């Protein structure tokens, strides 16, 4: 069991450094402020979801972690190193949405080509087998299905046995079974000490597979915590009732009310404590047709990211 002993030594050394450290990072593209100030520390072995709608700045932030672009202000460090330095040492790798493959190479050639670029790389056949593409190793990339090409990209990312793996929308285009297999592989890797950061816009996926969710919207972190914590932040129910000329000020003043909306004769109250609202409506007003609905995950997510949109305007 020497290998497990040395492995833990390696892990111990790495633990001295954060896997990812972003301090005051911003990124402008001309007049567009894509990232508006992000501070983020990720410890080794964490599986972190970068959750946010399209255009929130997830990919831009990941690009800066990889040294593909430089922050306008602030610093990005990977395991205490400059991002490009970490890449040169094979410590960080990524599966990006934009990464292309050469169609005229075979699967094996693609992996061998990539492996030859690292000072340390795992054996090509082993990586092909782990990624489940050994059977198609001699097939041209252009003849591979989208799922097979995605698995090839993973094989390439895992060649250098990176301490940090960055995944940008990794399961796009995968079926349910593919997703499940993929995540169980990622979880098994994380248990060995690999840090994983994945960008996604599915709250469900973030909640199910990440230890920690960093919610990003309009280039800022709007929430950071476990899945349960994130859901609690936007938890609550919606109380709907027919009540002409509702006193919105009085409703807003009730404890735990997040927002009050009037739609014609109806009033919609979003509240953490729906009982208080219901009791008030039924006893103090002429409200009728009262309905109470719980918020779904997606709605909670939209609420959190949408609020920031409101603040920006």
């Amino acid at each position: 069991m020497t290998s497990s002993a040395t492995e833990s030594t390696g892990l111990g050394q790495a633990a001295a450094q954060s896997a990812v450290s972003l301090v005051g990072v911003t990124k402008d593209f001309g007049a567009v402020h894509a990232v508006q100030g992000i501070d983020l520390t990720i410890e080794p072995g964490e599986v972190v979801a970068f959750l946010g709608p399209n255009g929130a700045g997830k990919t831009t932030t990941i690009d800066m972690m990889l040294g593909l672009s430089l922050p306008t202000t602030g610093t990005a460090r990977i395991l205490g190193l400059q991002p490009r330095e970490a890449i040169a040492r094979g410590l960080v790798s990524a599966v990006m949405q934009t990464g292309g493959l050469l169609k005229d190479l075979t699967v094996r050639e693609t992996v061998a080509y990539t492996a030859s670029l690292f000072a340390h790389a795992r054996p090509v056949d082993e990586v092909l087998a782990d990624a489940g593409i050994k059977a198609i190793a001699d097939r041209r990339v252009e003849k591979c299905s989208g799922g097979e090409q995605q698995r090839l990209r993973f094989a390439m990312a895992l060649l250098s046995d990176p301490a940090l793996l960055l995944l940008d929308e990794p399961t796009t285009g995968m079926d349910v079974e593919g997703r499940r297999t993929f995540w169980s592989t990622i979880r098994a890797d994380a248990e060995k000490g690999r840090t994983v950061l994945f960008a996604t816009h599915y709250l469900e996926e973030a909640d199910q597979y990440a230890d920690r969710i960093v919610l990003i919207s309009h280039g800022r972190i709007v929430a950071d915590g476990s899945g349960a914590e994130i859901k609690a932040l936007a938890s609550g129910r919606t109380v709907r009732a027919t009540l002409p000329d509702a006193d919105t000020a009085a409703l807003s003043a009730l404890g735990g009310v997040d927002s009050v909306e009037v739609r014609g004769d109806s009033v919609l109250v979003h509240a953490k404590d729906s009982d208080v609202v219901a009791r008030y409506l039924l006893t103090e007003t002429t409200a009728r047709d009262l309905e109470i609905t719980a918020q779904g995950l997606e709605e909670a997510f939209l609420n959190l990211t949408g609020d920031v949109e409101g603040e920006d305007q």
Partner: protein
Amino acid sequence: MSTDAILSPDRRQVPALGAFNLTMLGIEVRRILRNRRAVVFTLIMPVVLYLIIGTNSDYSGRREGSGNISAYILISMAAYGAVLAATSGGAMVATERALGWSRQLRLTPLSPVAYIAVKALVSLALGLGSVLAVNLVGVLNGKAEMPTHVWIAAGLIAWLGSIVFGAFGLFMGYLLPSENVMQVLGPVLAGLAALGGLWFPIKPHTVLGHISACTPIYGLANLARWPLYGGAPHVVWILNLVGWLAVFVAGAAWRMSKDTARV
């Protein structure tokens, strides 16, 4: 490799030479030899053209400089093949960028200099193959006559001078980023070869002669055939070659700098 180095930054090394290595070079060479269009264009077509144009017994045996007309045409076709090889090599870099492969490579330790070095070596190898193919067929065919040192010098100039067109291919590849950029550049190069005097001799001091002297292949064509005549090379030939090199390099650099946002 044991697992203990996996998570320890101190024990991970940076590859030597910016990750330049023979495995990668070998795969790139195999890749280009598998590309039927590249092989037909650069290795077969110049040979066929030489056999059609350069061995016609009506004129091929006539004296020309220290050799004969067949030798003159052989050198021209070798230069044409080398130009095609270099151009497709340059265009390949731009195509790979358009495909997103360059971005994929930026997730590895490969340095841009090592990448360009591999691409340059591969297209030089293809260019050398093209020049050797034409010359080998010329030797076996026996119609071309010129002193041995002229064979060698003309072949070397055609081969190395074609590097200019690597920059041309790179520039054009950035202007027309598509996988089939060579389908466009093939006819363009055939036209430039005609204007530059590779297909038929163009008389100097005529209107066509002046136009020819301003086109990119003119300098290379005349420099490659220069050993056949000896004496000092014309300044215009060198200016033409160097001038177009500057234009293509500047053009490629300009397109590259416009394009950084995507890499």
